């Protein structure tokens, strides 16, 4: 193919692609599924926040300052994390895809830059406050639980923190690569 006209002619020669017979039906089904999935996700996250909040108020009734402080830090960090994720998902969905490509890329870059701040500044703080909350509660666990269960809580928490950090690390890497990709896409 020595000229663009030849390439164009080959391109035009491609067979016409027809929409699959039940394509529209399955598309509408998929749209419905997405709506339901979003409702379930929002419901689960809201329920998590409510249960954690309820648990906090229940424990607060015991009037033990150490428990209140430890749980406030742990539950507060979890709630903040959940709210940030919900807002981020919502913001990404609201990025207008019918804008021109240049504006869309600018908006997407702005979004990922904000996410970078969340990852670099807010997430480590959340993990730190969560860990402090846990450490504050440790003496109480030791005093009130059996030695075996205390060791189990200690070890499983460290493992959980490690797994959680890996998960967040992967997410940060993906989003930073996306940001780099957007910057290099011109």
């Amino acid at each position: 193919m020595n000229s663009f006209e030849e390439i164009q002619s080959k391109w035009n020669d491609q067979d016409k692609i027809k929409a699959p017979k039940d394509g529209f039906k399955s598309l509408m089904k998929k749209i419905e599924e997405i709506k339901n999935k979003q409702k379930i996700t929002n419901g689960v996250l809201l329920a998590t926040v409510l249960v954690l909040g309820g648990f906090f108020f229940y424990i607060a009734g015991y009037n033990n300052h150490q428990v209140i402080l430890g749980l406030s830090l742990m539950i507060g960090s979890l709630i903040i994390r959940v709210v940030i994720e919900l807002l981020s998902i919502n913001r990404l969905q609201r990025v207008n895809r019918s804008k021109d490509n240049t504006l869309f890329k600018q908006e997407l870059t702005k979004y990922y830059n904000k996410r970078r701040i969340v990852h670099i500044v807010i997430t480590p703080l959340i993990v730190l406050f969560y860990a402090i909350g846990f450490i504050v509660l440790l003496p109480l666990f030791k005093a009130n639980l059996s030695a075996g269960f205390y060791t189990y809580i200690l070890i499983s928490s460290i493992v959980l923190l490690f797994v959680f950090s890996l998960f967040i690390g992967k997410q940060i890497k993906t989003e930073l690569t996306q940001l780099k990709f957007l910057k290099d896409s011109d």
Partner: protein
Amino acid sequence: MKEKEETFKNIYHSNYDKVMRICIGYTAGNNDEAGDLTQEVFIKVWSSLDEFRNESKMATWIYRITVNTCLTRLRKLKKKVKNYDVESVIDVPQENETIDKEIMYEGLYNCINKLSETNRAIILLELEGLPQKEIAEVIGIKHEAIRTRIHRIKNELIKCVNNE
């Protein structure tokens, strides 16, 4: 709701071909990936339909959603896209016409895949026959700049398909 669904159905059937071809271009000829991408495009079309204000043509509007949706999926897709033998684009033997055609298109898609993301979008829209003024509206670059850029991309593409 019924009226919206009816409008959407018409949009789906009259634009499926265009969207799918752009998506195939983005996935370097991978029809399955392109099918998923096309579905994602139409999901976005459905969710944005109420915002369509007739300020641009429906086709331009859909192309914008297509190009932007493909962009968000591109990084993931890049890993999956196969690398085809570009040499095979040049001299396709005449026997076994269907296979030859496939090889030729695979090579062409591979060359398109080597372009930068924006250049790829521009050339796919040009190949689809969208007027350059509308390509400028989809990409968000001035009309004159698009004209020069298309000329450059065409040369780049010709060089690639001829394995220069």
